[in-house]
């Protein structure tokens, strides 16, 4: 029995700024551009948007500023603290706000100068703040960056299941091929397994430089409204079948307390989201899997049942996740190659894929005409996808998920 809210809400508009490492402007200016583009995409006027949601890590512009700039008078607005795994969760919050009658159409955005202002990697502003509270148990040991927080679980995965650096590298290889057919991608050059293995170590044995995502400046926006309203808007409605998160594993902020430490929040979210959607992993045509690091992709595919626990290394290096494969992943290039947005761009990409409007190099992409000739400078539209899934992740313990259909 599917959930009563299944297919009751839709994503009707998406938009983003350029993915760059030199935006040269404020997060406010970028947020406004992304929201405007998403409204234009949906065919909505500012008067028809009455809800705003954003998320931030003290590095963005609040939604009231964006509302003022665009002439939106919100009936509902909120700026939520959080990074990865927020995108899917905020889509759920938007549905909830609409469902209880607080508003009817919500623009969700994330704006960040993630390279030129506050780098997530932790160099600069974040690294120089005083250390207090539970960070006293980690930062004095030189442990601060997201990768370092994840690394103990990754090393254990290599030990327990024999996952190799070569398998991990294939995630980057595949995503880079996808990005090579994405004019928006910040890194469009296809890379090889050797390129990844020859890039310098960041944290051994779990990540070379090319196993790590980009840090970029960008804003992104997703607009959610009811299916009833969606039918009268510009684009083919993309239905929200199910959403879950942010959820967590046991001991959310002490993710090493209970073994297996390779078990992530997705382990607990998976049964809930598939039950809500009324489908299983085998029904999913394309995935958007949070690729902060090549390893996060491996652990999520296992947690959500796309492969058995321990077989994620095989799954990502078997051809399944590439364009033309059984279930392509991160067809835009994701965080590893397109740009870093804390999850937003992978949802935007899946919306475009389900519309048949992947903005690749095919001249007729706007009208849904694609060559399906995958490769650099070519097509990246998946043939006729019906159902897409996003898996969001932030810190070793938290996660969120979203299933969409056309």
């Amino acid at each position: 029995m599917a959930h009563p809210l299944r297919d009751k809400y839709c994503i009707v508009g998406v938009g983003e700024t350029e993915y760059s490492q030199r935006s040269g402007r404020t997060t406010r200016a970028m947020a406004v551009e992304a929201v405007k583009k998403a409204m234009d995409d949906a065919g909505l006027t500012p008067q028809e948007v009455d809800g705003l949601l954003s998320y931030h890590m003290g590095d963005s512009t609040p939604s009231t500023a964006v509302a003022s700039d665009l002439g939106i008078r919100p009936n509902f607005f909120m700026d939520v603290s959080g990074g990865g795994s927020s995108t899917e969760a905020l889509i759920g919050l938007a549905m909830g706000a609409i469902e209880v009658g607080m508003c009817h159409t919500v623009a969700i955005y994330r704006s960040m100068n993630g390279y030129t202002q506050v780098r997530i990697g932790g160099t600069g502003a974040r690294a120089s703040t005083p250390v207090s509270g539970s960070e006293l148990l980690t930062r004095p040991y030189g442990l601060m960056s997201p990768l370092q927080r994840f690394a103990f679980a990754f090393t254990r995965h290599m030990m327990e299941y024999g996952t190799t650096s070569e398998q991990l590298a294939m995630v980057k290889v595949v995503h880079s091929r996808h990005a090579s057919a994405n004019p928006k991608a910040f890194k469009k050059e296809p890379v090889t397994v050797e390129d990844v293995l020859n890039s310098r170590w960041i944290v051994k044995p779990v990540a070379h430089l090319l196993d790590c995502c980009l840090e970029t400046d960008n804003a992104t926006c997703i607009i959610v409204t009811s299916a009833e309203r969606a039918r009268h808007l510009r684009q083919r409605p993309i239905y929200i079948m199910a959403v879950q998160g942010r959820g967590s594993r046991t001991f959310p902020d002490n993710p090493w307390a209970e073994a297996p430490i390779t078990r992530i929040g997705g382990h607990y979210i998976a049964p809930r989201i598939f039950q809500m959607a009324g489908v299983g992993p085998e029904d999913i045509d394309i995935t958007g899997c949070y690729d902060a690091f090549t390893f996060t992709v491996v652990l999520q595919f296992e947690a959500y049942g796309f492969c058995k626990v321990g077989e994620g290394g095989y799954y990502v290096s078997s051809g399944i996740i590439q364009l033309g494969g059984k279930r392509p992943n991160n067809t835009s290039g994701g965080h590893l190659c397109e740009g870093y947005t804390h999850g937003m761009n992978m949802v935007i990409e899946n919306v475009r894929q389900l519309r048949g409007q992947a903005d690749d190099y095919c001249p007729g992409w706007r009208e849904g005409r694609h060559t399906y000739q995958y490769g650099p400078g070519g097509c990246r539209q998946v043939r006729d996808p019906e159902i897409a899934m996003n898996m969001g992740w932030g810190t070793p313990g938290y996660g969120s998920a979203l299933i969409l259909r056309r």
Partner: protein
Amino acid sequence: MPTYEYRGLILNIPEFDQEHAGYFEYARRHQLAVKRCLDCGLLRWEPGPSCPFCTSLRWEWTPVSGRGEIYSYQIVYHTVLPGFRDWVPYPIVLVELDEQRGVPTPGYGLRITANLVDEHFRPEREERVAIGARVEAVFMDLPNGLTLPQFTLSGEPPRTPLWRHKE
């Protein structure tokens, strides 16, 4: 309020931070301490204000042996902390203490992060870092009065086969 500088970091350990102040007080006496619930008696790490197993708010710091084994590790080649640049590559280890392994759930353990250091408190060489290696706590006394718990290889025979990444 006690504030200490270490490798360019400013560490704030006020007395009212009862989650952490006691840990560093014991460290100054060269003892590794964890929290123990005064109601159900279980040890816990991290040292929060309540027992995650019975929600009791009554606790005490209690010294432990400081012995255990490396449960997982990472060798940091690129640090985001400028004060650690002269230390790379340095190991960070997740040590599972000998006390209360697999209690109260089969997966639970007192797993503490620190650096693996040699007898001069320098980063241990990476070829000596392995999952399963036996370690013991050592205490790094800083000139400013702060003592930082660290771990070093104890030389005891491992109880399980060692694992380390093969190049």
